């Protein structure tokens, strides 16, 4: 078989996963840019968004369920910040991070309790989950839509940050927390806005992700969350385009590694399975450590990009 034809499906599915990671990664990178906090609960918010959708779609039609789900998720993100992070504003950074881990633990356990620990099937959304043929390969429409939608949202976000008042406030706060406070910027409003944008994108990401992989379990958010965070670090934390590019790289690598045995066998490089797929998750962390050791500021240094 022709090498490109065997590799293409992995790359396409990698781009799609990458787009979904990107939408989560923006939440991490924006929050980190402003609060210097690794919001460990962000991945779980993403999972909760999936669960909310499962329960909403069972009772109301989809065109109501999707906006309502996004609204509820944004509300959750806002509440988490107000309840779990705001009281610790003056505390050491470690306390806030522990609080984030605590929230993550709570969300996962709540989800376990509500779902009874069972897999919930994500509702099929018409049109985007349809089967299509692309370059002679069968896939679902969401795979193709994801990267375009992601890029569109990112462009809108960058416009928002560069051309609105709240965007300017965000940039100011991320540059210097205390000074911007002195300049009369309402810090709490800016932080809330950051969380609202971050969770909104995670909610959109959850629709795409779970349409593609339609099973929601309490730990669904943990791995995508961690990978999205790694993507944010990889691209240079605080930089939105960096996070997006990092996410695409990680998505593609992960998908290709899962199929690497097959690619190598089909192309005659090795003769039997060697189980490289085991490292599909671990490779993300190898990338992370390499970048942290050699270029701690990430691919895109702090200056050249929009820092939020």
């Amino acid at each position, binding site marked *: *078989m022709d090498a490109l034809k*065997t590799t293409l*499906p*992995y790359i396409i*599915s990698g781009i799609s*996963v990458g787009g979904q990671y990107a939408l989560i990664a923006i939440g991490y990178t924006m929050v980190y840019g402003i609060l210097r906090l690794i919001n460990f609960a962000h991945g779980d918010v993403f999972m909760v968004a999936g669960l909310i959708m499962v329960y909403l779609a069972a009772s109301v039609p989809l065109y109501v369920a999707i906006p309502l789900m996004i609204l509820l998720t944004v509300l959750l993100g806002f509440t988490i910040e107000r309840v779990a992070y705001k009281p610790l504003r003056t505390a050491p950074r470690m306390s806030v991070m522990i609080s984030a881990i605590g929230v993550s633990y709570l969300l996962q356990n709540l989800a*376990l309790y509500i779902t*009874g*620990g*069972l*897999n919930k*099937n994500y509702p099929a959304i018409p049109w985007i*989950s349809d*089967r299509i043929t692309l370059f002679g390969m*069968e*896939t*679902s429409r969401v795979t193709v839509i994801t990267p375009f939608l992601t890029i569109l949202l990112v462009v809108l976000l960058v416009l928002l940050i560069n051309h609105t008042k709240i965007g300017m406030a965000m940039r100011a706060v991320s540059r210097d927390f205390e000074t911007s406070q002195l300049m009369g910027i309402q810090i709490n409003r800016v932080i809330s806005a950051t969380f609202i944008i971050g969770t909104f994108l995670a909610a959109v990401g959850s629709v795409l*992700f779970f349409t*593609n*992989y*339609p*099973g929601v*379990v309490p*730990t*669904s958010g*943990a*791995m*995508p969350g961690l990978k999205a965070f790694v993507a944010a670090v990889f691209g240079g934390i605080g930089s939105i385009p960096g996070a997006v590019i990092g996410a695409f790289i990680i998505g593609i690598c992960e*998908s290709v590694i*899962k*199929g690497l*045995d*097959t*690619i190598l*066998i*089909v192309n005659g490089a090795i003769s039997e*399975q060697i*189980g490289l*797929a*085991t490292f*599909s*998750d671990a490779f993300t962390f190898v990338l992370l450590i390499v970048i942290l050791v050699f270029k701690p500021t990430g691919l895109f240094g702090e200056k050249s990009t929009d820092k939020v």
Partner: protein
Amino acid sequence: MKKILSLTLALIMVFALCSVGTAYADNPVVKIGVFEPQSGDNGAGGKQEVLGMQYANVLTPTVEIDGVEYDVELVYADNASSNDKAPTAAQTLISSGVSLVLGSYGSGVSIAASDTFDAAGVPAIGVTCTNPQVTAGCDVYFRICFLDPFQGTVLANFAKNELGASKAYCLAKQGDDYSGGLCNYFIEAFGKENCVYEQFPEGTSDYSTYITNAQNQGCDVFFSPVSTEAAAQIIAKADTQALGMPILAGDTWDSNVILQAAKGTDVKICVTTFYQEGADAEFDAGIKEWINNDATALANNGGNDELAAVTVMGFDAYYVALEALKAAGSTDPADVLEVLPDVSYEGVTGAIAFDDIGDALRDSAFVKECNTETGVWDFVSVATVG
């Protein structure tokens, strides 16, 4: 503040201790432990297996032991489909004074807990844990189902002879003794050189790559005896990616979860299992009526009354437990353990007796195929080895 907190904590604990052990009157009670996953990967399957025991308990709530009528109480412990939670879950059952234990669905948790049961001398009857390691080297573990070497061979023969497959793609979950073991025996019977074997890690949500792998390597049967949770997603992906080969699996897939996932798709699915619905019409009607009238049971069965083979196995396991208690003439685990090797019972799924390792003497399996139009199982054949 700290004092208040510690005081509250202390109070909670005291109350918790007091609340343990309020017994109700009338007949003396004999406790049977139910060691099953209620959450995690195998939660859905575990719940279905428990349903059978609960139904049996409704039909036969008492047992006569040594001339005294005992109420049978089922004591539950959730092993959360996780090998590291299993030993403690087993210990909770042991400490609550059970005479014997039934379970579990999923071989890994049974293997993990076998040491705990062994140390306490409490006998356990595996219901659908098919890995040989469950009973091998463990004196207290018995089981009423067939084993993976048998099931793997049946499936490999079926793939070769009935499906005409020459190259098989095998997919197991990493660290899972059920799917890993079954794949291993399937590969042994099918021929190692004709198999592609891959494992996905826990928490995988992307099965599309594995389907692409199978297609790219030119396989013509897809063998994936994994949990029903993963199964539903694999089927969905197989449909969107036009897998183009039949999917084959073991007894866990004989579940309405699979039927719901497969309905309306064009994926061919075949499974081996313990029981064919309709084999005992009276039993089927009874349990379906019970499931339909009990909202919790209906929810635990996935919302409809389609029977899973594991439910029927759970039903039989309960009666084997009662037979053991009757034969022992005592509720002491040690006495039950002593008589258990000689217990036999004619169940809904066939005759049940144990060999000297503690495994069931079973030599046949049902092969079924999913009818994707109507969403029910169609009977294919009864398979034996030899």
